[in-house]
């Protein structure tokens, strides 16, 4: 057994032994679990992909005379101004003002909230336009100005739901193209899209939330961030296989970090034809090897991870809960799987290439002594369920 303190001392001294979740399974097989657990201190996990539930709080500082913003737009994308005088919140899926959306079906959705966040982190100059009704203490009623992230007092990203433990594989069984947040799905299951990094995915390497909890230090697009809460829709109660892999989405976490520390490569606006805009983010999560059992769980392989295949023409929109079958990430990454006697070509909407890069970057930061672990202050719920929205005809 190792403690967080011991591991952090080794990291600080530059002596920590770190491996990515992609490398570790093979190593443990060669060395044996007990010996490897004594040797390895940290396993790094990572993912890069669209994470719709993202946004950021921006503080602009006060102008002379002052304004208390009531409506605001950044690059014509509406921001939420009901926070405080010069605090704005902008969400990843917010469309730009005047976007025709799906009026010209399927819509293009070239620019939105996610792109504003990409531009901020890239240091580009953006336009702020804000209105107010004017008060005695905040008399200014309109402001139009240009700013970069360096002009802001704070730019703090918040992601209420990140890193789904597992995720659907989307197909389209109908006869017409389906435009979804999982990408363009061709008729009659001519393609399938999936969205998890599989064996590298953070919560699949700690399936019962033993070490990832509230307060865990994480790598969020290059910045040192934290898990601040359970993610929205976190649903710990799920059918799980022998490796703890849930048969559906299950666990999620809420993350936050300072955008001023982020790297542009890992904060990317997303345009999904016919669906809308979003944000793709890179996340790295270190798993401390406190005991052989922790290491064992971090040895999960793509062939052990099964994902549910769901029809996005019918079952997903109708929320029927029907699952067509389960397929392994080994099959998905191998290029496809069989469905109703036909081979379906699978492609990922998240990037395993970037996830691998992140796992290596984080491993390097830990080896150099630049990234210390943080023991969780509280755990993610292990009993929670996910409620559907019940539509009531009348107030009770």
């Amino acid at each position, binding site marked *: 057994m190792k403690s967080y303190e011991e591991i952090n001392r080794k990291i600080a001294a530059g002596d920590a032994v770190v491996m990515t979740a992609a490398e570790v399974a093979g190593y443990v097989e060669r060395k044996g679990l007990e010996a490897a657990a004594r040797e390895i201190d940290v396993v790094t996990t990572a993912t890069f992909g669209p994470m719709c539930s993202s946004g950021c709080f921006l503080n602009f500082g006060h102008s002379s005379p002052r304004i208390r913003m009531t409506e605001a737009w950044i690059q014509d994308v509406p921001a939420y101004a009901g926070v405080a005088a010069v605090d704005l919140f902008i969400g990843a899926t917010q469309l730009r003002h005047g976007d025709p959306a799906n009026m010209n079906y399927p819509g293009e959705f070239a620019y939105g909230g996610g792109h504003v966040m990409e531009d901020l982190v890239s240091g580009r100059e953006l336009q702020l336009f804000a209105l107010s009704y004017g008060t005695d203490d905040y008399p200014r009623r309109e402001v139009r100005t240009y700013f970069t992230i360096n002009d802001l007092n704070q730019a703090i990203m918040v992601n209420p739901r990140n890193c789904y433990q597992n995720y659907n594989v989307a197909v389209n069984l109908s006869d017409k193209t389906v435009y979804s947040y999982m990408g363009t799905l061709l008729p009659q299951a001519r393609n399938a899209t999936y969205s998890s990094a599989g064996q590298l995915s953070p919560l699949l390497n700690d399936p019962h939330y033993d070490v990832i909890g509230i307060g865990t230090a994480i790598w969020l697009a290059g910045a040192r961030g934290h898990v601040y809460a359970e993610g929205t829709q976190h649903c710990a109660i799920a059918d799980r296989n022998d490796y703890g892999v849930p048969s559906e989405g299950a666990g999620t976490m809420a993350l936050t970090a300072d955008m001023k520390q982020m790297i542009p490569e890992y904060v990317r606006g997303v345009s999904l034809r016919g669906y809308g805009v979003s944000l793709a983010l890179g996340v790295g999560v270190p798993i401390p090897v406190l005991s052989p059992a922790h290491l064992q769980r971090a040895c999960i392989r793509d062939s052990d991870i099964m994902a549910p295949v769901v029809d996005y023409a019918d079952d997903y929109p109708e929320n029927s809960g029907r699952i067509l079958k389960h397929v392994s990430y080994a099959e998905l*990454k191998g290029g496809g799987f069989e469905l109703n006697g036909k081979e379906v070509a699978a492609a990922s909407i998240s990037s395993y290439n970037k996830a691998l890069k992140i796992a290596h970057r984080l491993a390097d930061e830990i080896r150099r002594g630049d990234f210390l672990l943080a023991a969780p202050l509280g755990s993610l719920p292990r009993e929670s369920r996910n409620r559907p929205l019940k539509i009531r005809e009348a107030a009770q």
Partner: protein
Amino acid sequence: MSEPTVTRKLMLFFPRCECEKPIIYHLVKDYGLVVNVFRAKVTPEEEGYLVLDVTGTESDIEKALAFVKTFDVKINAAGKGLHWDAGRCTHCGVCLPHCPTEALFYGNPDKREVAFDEDKCIECLACIKVCPFNACSSAF
């Protein structure tokens, strides 16, 4: 011994559309070239674009290009109408099943790194529509 045939991909840009002139007809008839047009477009501004493969002997292709140059045209023999931006590509791979010719493919399968083979691209533009990261764009 007869001269071997080669295939070259060209993008022609006509700043002012010369649509009324049968250029392709002459390439086939006068220079014996086999022509495969991928994409042709006249913009509302009356600019014309043409992306095509020509197959023939080197000398016939040279002569044909000299003929084409007698028009008000810019010939781009290296550049293509479809641009893949390696820096913007996240290597997600979501475009791969949509690309009919495997012009977009895993160049480094171990790292799952996507690469683009310009010569295989037929400019169907499917990747532009499905890429969530705006990594693919068209010159016209």
